[in-house]
């Protein structure tokens, strides 16, 4: 699998670390029920999913990658920093 890093270009997946679901927002720490759900009750979706990948052997940027987890087709990759700013 290759990931099109917006900074570096197309790179092998071995250069990246997978960092989980990009569709969730971390709840306030004092909301124990919401935190329990956030930490433990994760979905296991098929098909298109959005997830964080960290380019640790390259530009050290966090990416938000849209990927079909059934076929490994990578549909889109953007800098998570840019996405958060927009």
């Amino acid at each position: 699998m290759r990931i099109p890093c917006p900074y570096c270009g197309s790179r092998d997946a071995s250069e990246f670390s997978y960092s989980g679901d990009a569709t969730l927002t971390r709840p306030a720490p004092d909301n124990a029920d919401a935190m329990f759900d956030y930490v433990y009750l994760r979905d296991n979706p098929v098909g298109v999913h959005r997830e964080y990948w960290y380019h640790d052997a390259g530009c050290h940027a966090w990416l938000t990658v849209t990927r079909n987890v059934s076929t490994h087709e990578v549909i889109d990759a953007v800098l998570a920093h840019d996405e958060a700013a927009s």
Partner: protein
Amino acid sequence: MLDLAHIPAFANLRSMGDGRGVIARERRGIAVATVMARKGQSAALAAAVKEQFDINLPLGPHGSGSDAMSFLGTGPGRWLVTHDAGTPRFVDSLAQQLDSLASVVEQSDGVGLLRLSGPALLEVLAKGVAIDLSATAFPAGSVAVTQIAHMGVTLWKVDEAPTIHIAVARSMAGSFLHWLEASAAVAGLVVDS
């Protein structure tokens, strides 16, 4: 009294095999720094670099400047700066010149630098680099942060001879040399002093 000796990162670089497929030279005495733009200061940093050094700060994975001084794009808002003009305490003065615009970190003793050329260079690098370094995909001026045999490297293509500069963490210099010697021996590795 203990005397400290200055030992270059690639002091053990030596010729291997027959032929002149890869020509290697350690770039010594070069000041190296990482520069990271402070939040919201990218445009001001680019203006300061242009004004103080007449260098266009690259926004992507490219190098700007010359052997004397270069800014290499290594990530969003991050550069590796090399300086070969012998200015004493260069990194200290760079930090002052870019004060409040960027974080400047001294790396001169942290990385080893090699200059590689020779007719078999791309063939040999292909044994370790998982990206296309040909002239179409990686023209002169291109920079890549990637890995060779699990060791982090920064590559900069200087010209299409091809000549490639490579930066490796100093603690990995011995292992990197082992990889280079083993990979280049078949084509011949020559040390150009």
